[in-house]
């Protein structure tokens, strides 16, 4: 039980490392936002495994919903590609 849950958390942590790397490396801001949302999803899984349902309920709307929306709005107003 404990081993299975922690294995899922470990996989989510490794996924978050990959997503963060791609988000920092990407020249295209829009794909950086998408990778950042993937990283947030991995963190939500980790919060669930660490038995924090309150944080999951506030983290999914904020970090997967509102923040990418605000960032995409910002990219639409400014410039998409990094020089």
């Amino acid at each position: 039980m404990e081993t299975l849950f922690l294995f899922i958390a470990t996989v989510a942590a490794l996924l978050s490392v990959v997503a963060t790397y791609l988000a920092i490396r990407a020249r295209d801001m829009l794909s950086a936002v998408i990778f950042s949302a993937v990283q947030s999803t991995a963190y939500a899984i980790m919060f669930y495994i660490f038995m924090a349902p309150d944080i999951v309920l506030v983290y999914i709307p904020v970090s997967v919903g509102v923040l990418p929306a605000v960032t995409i709005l910002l990219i639409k107003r400014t410039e998409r590609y990094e020089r």
Partner: protein
Amino acid sequence: MSDPTSLMFTTIFICLTVNIGMSLYGIFVRPSLVKKFIALTIFSDTLNCFAIALGFRRVVGSYPSIAVLAALPESPEQLSQLASTAVDPLPQALVLTAVVIGLAVYMFLAGLILMYYRYYKTTHVEVARGGRVG
């Protein structure tokens, strides 16, 4: 280290530390303000995850429960039984407010970046050092 559970904990914490390093690199080096914004959100999320992971505990023979009573308690023994199986609720309460306050502050930062773009016609951070452009 031979225990698989502690090996997995080690992997999780090293992954979080690597995330902190990469997001700090993004904040310091990448010239675009929007990229710095994204890296800053990743950085704060990672620190919140650290705080939650520090509140985790292990229970012998089973998995820890959430810090919620399932039903109205009928005797004081149920309360001490909750205290012997539940995770630490204090980091969760601190992170809960930090996430929402962080969202409002990020929206303020987004407004600042928008004004920067209207003034300098770019989000490149080096432009501001050379004075007014265009």
